[in-house]
């Protein structure tokens, strides 16, 4: 397979690889907005400080869709970038196409296995060798709230979905939008998986969205998940379609709405607007046990040239290094992937996230987010999202939704 794709390695790449040269890396990523870009810039500075030459290849859009388009074109033209922001099972998919490089030597020298939670380390391995380096851990199953609104209405952060529903009805009666939500497929999916984790429990979630167990997908519990989604639909304002997630966050900030279910990048919006965690806004995990993670990582592609290989090794070492893990995640709102980084400078939400990640890792409820491409391959995750968003945006019954879900998953294989 490999020879087909690299039959014609572009001449420029060969000429460019000098005889004995400094580490080089062309890095394809989709972190282009202010805070994210600054975070990557930290990596570039460290890379340069070690004598590396960093070529930036940013492509934003669609949560990485555009970058993946560019990546395919680059790989097919025999001109793959040296390091690429990739995550979840996509790493293993690219490995199967025979285009990834092995970075086990760095991983073993740096002792990654000892500092990464086991389930996260699993995502970084391909057939037993290390093929990617993790950057951060975003928690997806957060519920954010406006502290003043909750207080004014005498509401505590809900710990069960029934409590959530009761609180929402109370808020609705008080003329406040209970749930700020943006009607985009990925946001629908984000809420759906948070609800599913609460209702199915960690084991059920694992069976449904990691193992794709048909019985679980068709079970009565899954119907209950869709029922709750239908209830949630009633708590959303009528103009939610197509709204960007950050505008939904702004609704919580303004007190127009009370809650939002969104990953911890929402924290960045609150903080950018000068709000303080615990005072102006509250963060808590959604009702139910478990922890859904969304881990960003970089995979190294198989490229020619000593300088490029040196660049890949240096990059991998720096990404998992203590300093970058700390600085990057302070900027981004997530927490470090390695568990031995001091969290002194982090805020209370990050502390909560870190504590629950360790607990979940110990009791086996640390689970990959399906909505953010950590649990399933693109085709299956996409098929589930199609059903979730179709159900949420129509009057489909839960029975129909469950049947469609099973059909769609079967058809996506």
């Amino acid at each position, binding site marked *: 397979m490999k020879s087909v*794709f690299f039959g014609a390695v572009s001449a420029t790449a060969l000429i460019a690889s000098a005889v004995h040269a400094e580490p080089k890396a062309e890095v394809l990523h989709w972190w282009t907005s202010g805070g994210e870009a600054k975070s990557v810039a930290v990596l570039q500075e460290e890379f340069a400080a070690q004598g590396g030459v960093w070529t930036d290849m940013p492509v934003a859009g*669609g949560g990485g*869709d555009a970058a*993946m*388009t560019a990546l*395919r074109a680059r*790989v*097919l033209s025999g001109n793959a970038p040296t390091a690429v922001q990739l995550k979840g099972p*996509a790493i293993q*998919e*690219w490995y*199967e*196409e025979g285009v990834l490089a092995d970075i086990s030597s760095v991983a073993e020298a740096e002792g990654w296995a000892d500092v990464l939670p086991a389930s996260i380390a699993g995502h970084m391995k391909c057939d037993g060798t290390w093929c990617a380096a993790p950057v951060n851990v975003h928690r997806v199953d957060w519920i954010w709230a406006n502290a003043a609104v909750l207080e004014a209405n005498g509401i505590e952060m809900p710990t069960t979905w029934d409590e959530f529903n009761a609180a929402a009805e109370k808020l609705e009666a008080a003329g406040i939008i209970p749930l700020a939500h943006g*009607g*985009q*497929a990925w946001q629908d999916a984000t809420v759906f998986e948070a609800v599913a984790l609460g209702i199915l429990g960690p084991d059920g979630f694992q069976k449904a969205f990691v193992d794709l167990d048909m019985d679980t997908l068709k079970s009565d519990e899954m119907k209950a998940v869709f029922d709750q989604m239908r209830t949630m639909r009633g708590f959303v*304002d*009528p*103009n*939610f*379609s*197509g*709204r960007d997630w950050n505008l939904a966050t702004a609704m919580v900030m303004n007190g127009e709405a009370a809650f939002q279910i969104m990953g911890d990048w929402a924290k960045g919006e609150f903080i950018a607007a000068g709000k303080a965690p615990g005072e102006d806004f509250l963060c808590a995990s959604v009702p139910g046990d478990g922890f859904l993670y969304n881990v960003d990582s970089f995979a190294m592609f198989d490229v020619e040239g000593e300088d490029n290989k040196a660049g890949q090794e240096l990059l991998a070492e720096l990404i998992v290094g203590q300093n970058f893990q700390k600085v990057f995640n302070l900027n981004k709102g997530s927490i470090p992937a390695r568990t031995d980084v001091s969290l002194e400078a982090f805020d209370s939400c990050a502390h909560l996230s870190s504590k629950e990640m360790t607990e979940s890792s110990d009791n086996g409820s640390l689970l990959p987010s399906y909505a953010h491409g950590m649990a399933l*391959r*693109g*085709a299956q*995750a*996409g098929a589930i999202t*199609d059903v979730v*968003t*179709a*159900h*949420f*945006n*129509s009057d489909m019954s839960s029975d129909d939704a469950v049947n*469609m879900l099973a*059909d*769609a998953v079967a*058809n*996506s294989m």
Partner: protein
Amino acid sequence: MTKWLEQNTPKLVLAPSFIAVLIFVYGFIAWTAWISFTRSRLLPRYDIEGVIQYERLFASPRWDTALNNLFVFGFLFIVIAMVLGLVLAILLDQNIRTEGALRTIYLYPMALSMIVTGTAWKWILNPGLGIQAMVRGWGFEEFTFDWLVNPDMAIYTIVLAAIWQSSGFVMALFLAGLRSVDGEIIKAAQVDGIPTWRIYTAIIIPSMAPIFLSAFIVLSHLAIKSFDLVIALTGGGPGYATDLPATYMYAMAFSRGDIGQAASSAMIMMMVVFAIVVPYLYSELRTKDE
């Protein structure tokens, strides 16, 4: 030798373009056809596996929606944009003093990338922010304009934005056409006292048949390509109510790593388009030949 060269110059001039089109259009269609019979996922693979991708495609309710939307969107967009473009061109052709400014205003939407214009449209069409909120603010409390958030109507917002973007170019085409109509015939007609509207319907518009052909091709091309527009305005939502074949294909090929499925959807889409376009072009070109 020079004689041969002289006789064959036209063919030699056309040859490079023709060869390029053969390879980069028809060759690539053939490639896509091949891939549509494989199990290609992340990258193309070449082992034929039968019609499995087509079976999957027709089992997908989302594809049904996308194909339906192509008919609704394509028909409305092409017809309305063509009529609007023609009307604007005729109006502008009446010795309008501010023609230069107006022409630029009608044309400028083409210049803006939909990546951002989509956001502006999204705000304008959002019931809570845009037109509906504004009109209600004027005191018309019952006024409702919620197409964007209504799954049954959302596709029409795509039509609206697409017409906004492209009708100016159609106007430019027709304006160029109007100005190449033979002035002598019109003067003669005016001398005969034929009313202006009759001169348009009986003489000018029929003489612009080739322009209609250009406009049709440009608009169908844009309709098939409408991709940025959907992504920026609705993202295919609510649900997947505004999905089009182009967005379906892109999602399959690039975000879901299902290239075989994308190829089969591309083949069906091209078949549909050719089934509609080929007869039209054929009849147009034939009448021209006679």
